[in-house]
């Protein structure tokens, strides 16, 4: 180790990579160049599909059937917003776009509220069966929604909720809860015990502790959960496919009807798909840190 330390002292002024011969350093430098190029290519490769969809959505039907989106580089004049104007003017599609909000916003708010409450109890209130309940929630994390489709369809039919936005929302909330509780419970449990106990000593009720102590500290976790849940519901197809009717369908379900004639509907489908992506992309770009944390939290902690 002492020998190494001496070598470091010699090498440091020459370059940042210590302890190597000139040749190794050269190879490393060259290798780094190759890595840069390869990763740049990968990044471009990853963006091409979305870029293609964007361009296709900005060309009209005749342009799209005549040739591929990549010809835009030679014919940039073909770009037009006409598809978007047409889509927004389409009452059914616009309604489905709004429906997506009507579904995603309450489904997110309800999950955040219910999960924060439940997580507080699981983390900080002692009651019999607390361990079991926590483990059940962890088990439910990976529950396939297929298990519930048939029974809940029957239940909603009996309650008059089938084909309504309320029904779709409730289903999303129920299946969003396990992950939400798991995420928040872990975060709440990490809050220093002293903070909670001090409040208890001051005679604060559980409700006050929850509101005044826990929630303010948990803002980052709640932000991650909010964004994750919102995008999850926004992006859903299967739940709405089963539980929504024509009037309550979100945009994915509305567009799905156009899939049958894909070849002749590229302009319409690409525009619709991009319209449905605008909100998630904006949310992702603005809140990327929270979203990434939310996704990772699904299994990290």
């Amino acid at each position, binding site marked *: 180790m002492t020998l190494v330390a001496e070598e470091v002292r010699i090498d440091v002024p020459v370059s940042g990579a210590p302890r190597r011969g000139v040749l190794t350093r050269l190879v490393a430098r060259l290798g780094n160049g190759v890595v840069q190029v390869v990763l740049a290519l990968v990044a471009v490769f990853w963006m091409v599909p979305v870029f293609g969809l964007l361009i296709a959505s900005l060309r009209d039907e005749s342009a799209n059937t005549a040739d591929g989106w990549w010809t835009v580089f030679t014919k940039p004049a073909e770009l037009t917003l006409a598809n978007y104007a047409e889509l927004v003017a389409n009452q059914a599609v616009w309604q489905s776009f709004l429906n997506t909000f009507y579904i995603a916003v309450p489904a997110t708010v309800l999950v955040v509220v219910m999960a924060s409450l439940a997580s507080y109890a699981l983390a900080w209130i002692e009651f019999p069966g607390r361990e079991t309940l926590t483990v059940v929630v962890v088990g439910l994390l990976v529950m396939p929604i297929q298990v519930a489709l*048939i029974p809940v369809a029957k239940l909603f039919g009996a309650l008059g909720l089938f084909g309504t936005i309320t029904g779709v929302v409730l289903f999303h909330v129920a299946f969003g809860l396990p992950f939400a509780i798991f995420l928040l419970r872990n975060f709440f449990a990490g809050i220093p015990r002293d903070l909670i106990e001090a409040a208890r*000593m001051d005679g604060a009720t559980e409700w006050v502790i929850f509101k005044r102590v826990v929630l303010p500290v948990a803002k980052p976790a709640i932000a991650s959960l909010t964004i994750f849940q919102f995008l999850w519901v926004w992006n859903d197809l299967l739940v709405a496919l089963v539980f929504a009717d024509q009037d309550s369908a979100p945009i994915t379900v509305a567009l799905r009807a156009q899939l049958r004639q894909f070849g002749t509907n590229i302009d319409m489908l690409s525009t619709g798909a991009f319209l449905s992506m605008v909100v998630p992309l904006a949310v992702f770009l603005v809140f990327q840190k929270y979203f990434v944390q939310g996704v990772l939290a699904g299994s990290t902690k």
Partner: protein
Amino acid sequence: MRLRVNVDAAPGRSPRQAIPFLLPALILLAALVLYPLVYSLIRSFFDASGNEFVGPRNYVDTFTDPRTLTAFRNNVIWVVVAPAAVTGIGLVLAVLTERIRWATAFRLVLFMPMAISLFASGIIFRLVYDEAPNQGVVNAVVVGVHDMFSPASQYPGARPRDGYARTDAGFASIRPSRAGDTISLPLIGYSSQDVPPQALPASPPAAGTGELRGVLWLDVSVGGRAGSVDPTERGLPGVAVEAVRDGQVVARTTTGDDGRFTFPDLGAGDVTVRLPAENFTLPFRGLTWLGASLITPVIISSWIWIMTGFAITFIAAGLSAIPRDALEAARVDGATEWQVFRRVTVPLLSPVLLVVFVTLVINVLKIFELVFVIAPGSVQSEANVLALQMWQVSFGTGGDQGAGSALAVILFLLVAPAMLFNIRRFRRERS
């Protein structure tokens, strides 16, 4: 800590306090998750109408129905190929991103597909893999590369009107010719609008001594006489013509703008005139990606596009937790980068890799939207997976909720090991 004893009497220790906090979530979980699980289990032993108990028949039917078996087979392919591929790619890219400054930007780009819906991703890849080379970018590239090595023919689909036999090498004249003859070679099966602009009106040549001459033209049957050169008909320039004697090509020429061709020095003896096949081969149109044989690999590739960002970000988080000392120590001992990767990085990362892998397996088992959107209706049965089959049997064309419930239960049993994995990991982390 000293206050612990008193705390037991504090209001927070009263179980009843927990009820209002837990109740809303518990009601929903019980009504819409737990009760349905039990209901599906029971329902799977009843027939389509739900009135008649049929025992395990739905399960027997499920495991003998060819559609469901295809779905099983595809799920196996998915589970074997896709999570391992994504974990591997994610690992390599995560290690590589450690060496660049713009790692955050790179991960952002690759993570982006996670934000958009599987439905939209499906449409994106339906377009990417579109069969027509003027729509789908993959086939455009495939055709472009193919044509670079074997250029497209000039007159795809054209053929002689009569008197020629189709062989592997091309169209060979049935009757032999010799020097001094003139040949009249009408072609059909090609649109006159596609004739190159430099083409001139065809004119039959006069016979020449010692030379074999001929004219090759597009014989438009509408408004002209079949087999003879009409004034409006044009020669086809640039068609290769061969003279073959005893199976050997003895001369080769190409037609001029007026369709004329000449073999000057044929020598004595009969030859067969042949039009090589490369004049007329149909253009290469790429692969039918969305056809029955390639559909599952295609959908898997789109899933890889979506999930790789997740794997990279997750693995990168694990990488940053590896003690730098361990890596440096190995490098000091003279290990190459590859050895460091194999012997130090991967073993230290293996718990993280396992979590990524299991998460991806769960995701794959529930795959639905991608297959639903990318596979065209005609090949959906070929691309079928369990989650899709469950929807189709229960809500799509099937309408049999008994069989659908059986499929749901099977799906549940398939993810059950992952449930136990999660629970065990959770318990271990807490202790």
